């Protein structure tokens, strides 16, 4: 190749290895990408530059396989203050308030070092939110592991839970909810997704956009060490036997420093001392500086020899790619440097000038006077080669969707409920969430264990409902329907508290996009989620994509986790999940067709994971959401709980079992009409969407019926709540099934602790 005049010169750093094809491959850059780099620079890159491209052009940072598909998400709406492209999305709340929120994955680190992997996942998402000027008020997490009978999975599960807890507890942000799912596909490649929700005055919003030529870049917070180098590229490859050797690339978290950084950052932002701020997250200093410069349309010059280090002798390459935690990059007007340093010193943190904003558009790195990188900044961030992978559903997936169980129907219809409640995916997650502080900040209205967490926005009387969800079985069987159902379940959970769904963030966990069946899942799931978001008026405000979730046993179930926030205009109208008062009437909202395809019942009882998942009726979901919000506003309902895994029977059982620390469960007597063609199994355990079990005072039955009629929601008054210690009785046609609720509760609560102490 003939080389034209270089765009800008850069030199090797003394001791750099020779630039060879092997070295390029080790940096996970293919021939096409390398050619683009040489074309952009009009010369071969230095090794430092190769490292920079490797990080920023990794899938994790560049979204090179997914960008065209992600652009199809609906991202606008009157409530959107900030859509995708920033550290976190922001939605408008009443009275000048706003909510910043985002979800992100930390899957690969957690697969090799679950404690630190999960802990630093929480740390990273907290920083994404407080760099917007928002104070974190809730964290949630979505965790997926292989079955607990494998000791390795128990180790990963226990380690990740402890990592999430230790980090969030120390920083002082309550964990208000989450989901934990166990399925064989996650053995070897667990998923750890963490979401953070923050509150800010809309006027305090700050964006990560560098501007003002001559302004100074400062490194704030922890020193830079050798941990986490190439974390972003590690996150962009399949897991294998060799992944264990990646353990040193897992960062180590220090939540104490995070807490100081949180306070210092919010003080820097709300006092107006700084121009911009960004977390040094994946790809550390490289991505934070390059992305802030590109957003602002300016250049940056970094002097890496000025960066405070943990250990001597680090090269510019290492400094640029370190993923040491609890570091921020801020942009400051030169005369305000002393103020920044004073605020940081108050919080026991260093703040060191390490570079400046320039007008030449270059991403330039100087170390001890040697220019080791000089790359056109805009091109570095925006001209990553895009890929349009082939997509095709695998014949096996098509066959699985149309199959039916071969085993005979179970005879013990009642016993099935106990089996379902004993499954760790359905069972109480108390073992998990009692390791997370859920009441710090003194704003928790509904803690974990219900449909969604609800928090009071301090200083107001409104609240937020928050949830994370993904029915991954459905997505695996039918990515389009499953994608819709993911958003629908999240919205239903939010709505069950009485809140109005506002918007979502998502974390798209998939396998290797170069496999057509994986990319088919990805594209279809995004299409389904987009359709649901449009139908519900809940735009996508950002998120994260995690590909290459594959281990030697194959790809994970496609898992597009949704994090949703909803608004409760009056927080005192919130509805709990569990039955509250004996004598209340019980009603079932929605239409039951007895759909067993893709159900937990077929999987656990008939040993069959397949069939078509329940079709998602977006209009019915929307009507149910509207009904729940309207009923809450009129204070009509005493409880509302959605029907999901395990169907109506599990929903009714959970409503009886009660809150995690209630002293005694309540009972209920429920009568189900059995329409022709629907089996008792289908009625009890089918997983039709757009349904909920609600309870209310008998005196309000006419108002409840009228509201349901007005909003077009099918409603069947099916029975009543009975006193503490009484049984759950469900009559199906002429057959009555009964369960001791103390036994249901014990089974439900002990399922996970029993396995973890095995």
């Amino acid at each position, binding site marked *: 190749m003939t080389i034209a005049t270089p765009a800008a010169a850069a030199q090797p750093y003394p001791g750099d290895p020779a630039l060879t094809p092997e070295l390029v491959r080790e940096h996970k850059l293919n021939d096409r990408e390398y050619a683009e780099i040489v074309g952009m620079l009009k010369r071969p890159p230095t090794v430092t530059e190769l490292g920079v491209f490797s990080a920023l052009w990794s899938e994790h940072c560049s979204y090179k396989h997914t960008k065209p598909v992600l652009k199809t998400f609906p991202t606008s709406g009157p409530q959107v203050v900030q859509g995708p492209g920033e550290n976190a999305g922001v939605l408008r709340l009443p009275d000048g308030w706003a909510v910043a929120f985002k979800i992100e994955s930390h899957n690969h680190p957690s697969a090799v070092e679950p404690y630190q992997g999960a802990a630093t996942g929480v740390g990273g998402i907290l920083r994404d939110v407080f760099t917007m000027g928002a104070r974190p008020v809730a964290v949630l997490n979505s965790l997926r592991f292989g079955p607990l009978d494998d000791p390795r999975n128990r180790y990963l599960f226990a380690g990740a839970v*402890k990592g999430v*807890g*230790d980090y969030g*507890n*120390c*920083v*002082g942000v309550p964990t208000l909810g989450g989901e934990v799912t166990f399925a064989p596909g996650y053995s070897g490649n667990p998923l750890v997704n963490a979401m953070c929700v923050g509150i800010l005055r809309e006027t305090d919003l700050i964006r990560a956009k560098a501007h003002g030529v001559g302004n100074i870049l400062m490194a704030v917070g922890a020193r830079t060490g050798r941990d986490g180098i190439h974390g972003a590229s590690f996150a962009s490859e399949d897991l294998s036997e060799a992944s264990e050797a990646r353990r040193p690339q897992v960062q180590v978290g*220090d*939540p*104490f*420093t995070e*807490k*100081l950084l949180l306070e210092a950052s919010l003080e820097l932002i709300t006092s107006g001392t700084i121009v911009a701020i960004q977390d040094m997250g994946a790809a550390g200093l490289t991505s934070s500086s390059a992305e802030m410069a590109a957003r602002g349309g300016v250049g940056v010059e970094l002097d890496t020899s000025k960066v405070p280090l943990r250990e001597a002798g680090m090269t510019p390459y290492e400094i640029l790619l370190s993923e040491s935690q609890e570091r921020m990059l801020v942009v400051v007007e030169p005369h305000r440097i002393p103020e920044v340093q004073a605020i940081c010193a*108050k*919080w*026991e943190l260093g703040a060191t000038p390490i570079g400046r904003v320039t007008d030449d558009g270059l991403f330039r790195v100087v170390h001890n006077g040697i220019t080791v990188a000089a790359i056109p900044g805009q091109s570095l961030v925006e001209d990553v080669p895009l890929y349009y992978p082939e997509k095709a559903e695998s014949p096996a997936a098509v066959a699985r969707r149309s199959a039916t169980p071969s085993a005979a129907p179970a005879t013990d219809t009642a016993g099935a409920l106990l089996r379902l409640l004993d499954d760790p995916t359905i069972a109480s997650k108390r073992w998990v*969430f*009692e*390791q*997370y*502080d*859920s*009441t*710090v*900040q*003194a*704003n*928790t*209205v509904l803690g974990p264990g219900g449909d969604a967490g609800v928090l*009071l926005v*301090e200083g107001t*009387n409104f609240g937020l409902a928050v949830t994370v969800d993904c029915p991954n079985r459905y997505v695996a069987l039918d990515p389009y329907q499953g994608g819709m159902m993911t958003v629908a379940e999240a919205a239903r959970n939010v709505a069950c508290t009485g809140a109005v769904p506002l918007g979502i963030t998502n974390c798209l966990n998939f396998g290797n996009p170069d496999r057509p069946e994986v990319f088919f899942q990805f594209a279809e799931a995004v299409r389904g989620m987009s359709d649901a978001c449009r139908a519900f008026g809940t735009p996508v405000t950002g998120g994260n994509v995690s590909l290459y979730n594959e281990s030697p046993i194959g790809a994970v179930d496609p898992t597009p986790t949704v994090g949703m926030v909803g608004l409760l205009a009056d*927080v*005192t109208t919130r509805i709990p999940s569990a039955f509250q008062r004996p004598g209340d009437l019980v009603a079932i909202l929605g239409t039951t067709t007895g759909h067993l395809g893709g159900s937990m019942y077929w999987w656990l009882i008939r040993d069959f994971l397949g069939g078509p998942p329940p079709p998602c009726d977006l209009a019915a979901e929307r009507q149910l959401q509207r009904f729940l919000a309207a009923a809450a506003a009129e204070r009509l309902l005493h409880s509302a709980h959605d029907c999901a895994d395990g169907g109506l029977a599990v929903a009714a059982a959970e409503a009886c079992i009660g809150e*995690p*620390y209630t*002293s*005694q469960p309540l009972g209920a007597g429920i009568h189900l009409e059995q329409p022709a063609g629907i089996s008792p199994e289908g009625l009890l355990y089918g997983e039709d969407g757009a349904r909920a079990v609600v309870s209310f005072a008998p005196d309000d039955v006419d108002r409840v019926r009228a509201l349901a009629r007005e909003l077009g929601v099918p409603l069947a008054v099916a029975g009543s709540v009975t006193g503490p210690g009484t049984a759950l009785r469900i009559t199906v046609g002429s057959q009555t099934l009964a369960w001791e609720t103390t036994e249901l*509760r014990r089974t439900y*609560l002990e399922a996970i602790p029993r396995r973890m102490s095995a």
Partner: protein
Amino acid sequence: MRVAILRFPGSNCEPDAYRAVAREGGTPYYLFHRDTDLQDADAVILPGGFSYGDYLRAGAIARFSPIMPAVERHAADGKPVLGICNGFQILCESGLLPGALERNAGLKYLSRPVDVRIERVDTPFTAHYRKGDVIRIPIGHGDGRFTAAPETLAELEQQGQVVLRYVERPKVDAPGNPNGALNDIAGIANRDGNVVGMMPHPERLADPLLGSEVGRRFFSSLVQWKRPALVSHA
């Protein structure tokens, strides 16, 4: 009632205590660990959190903060001091309260509601309860197992210094004592009753908007507290 709320690096419950005091009509204000003067405080609250990340041992570093000598003088004057959770740990580390708080018996951090019985109503923080009241308030700690030498424990009981005790209610799923604390102790006072430390968080259930406000009276008691002639509880 001027209530100084101390902020150590890593404290995270100070806004919660601040709100709880303000709601009852008190005048809360923050003091930083580097301050040395309590600025005419009538009472001092050491809030929960993870001062210094709980590194070394919970409360072990914070007790050396420049503000602590002033807290010791304030306590010696018989004025109210309340330590909640990490604040309790700091008070034990500093010797203002006897005993120590060790790792929970289950070796795990625990966040859950607990039922506690009010054992003493003559402290500045419990005057608005009735003796024997059982309230359900949250805990959130990894190191809450109260322990003391046998003679210290016996003395605490003899002197009536136990302020709060975990109690079991019938048919509750989890044990009443969440952490293995000796004698089910959830909170204690010093000999004069003016310094109180407790592991549960009453400030987290002190707002009517949250659905329960059973913890409010710790703060209403304090705000309306009139310093009595000191009596010993021997």
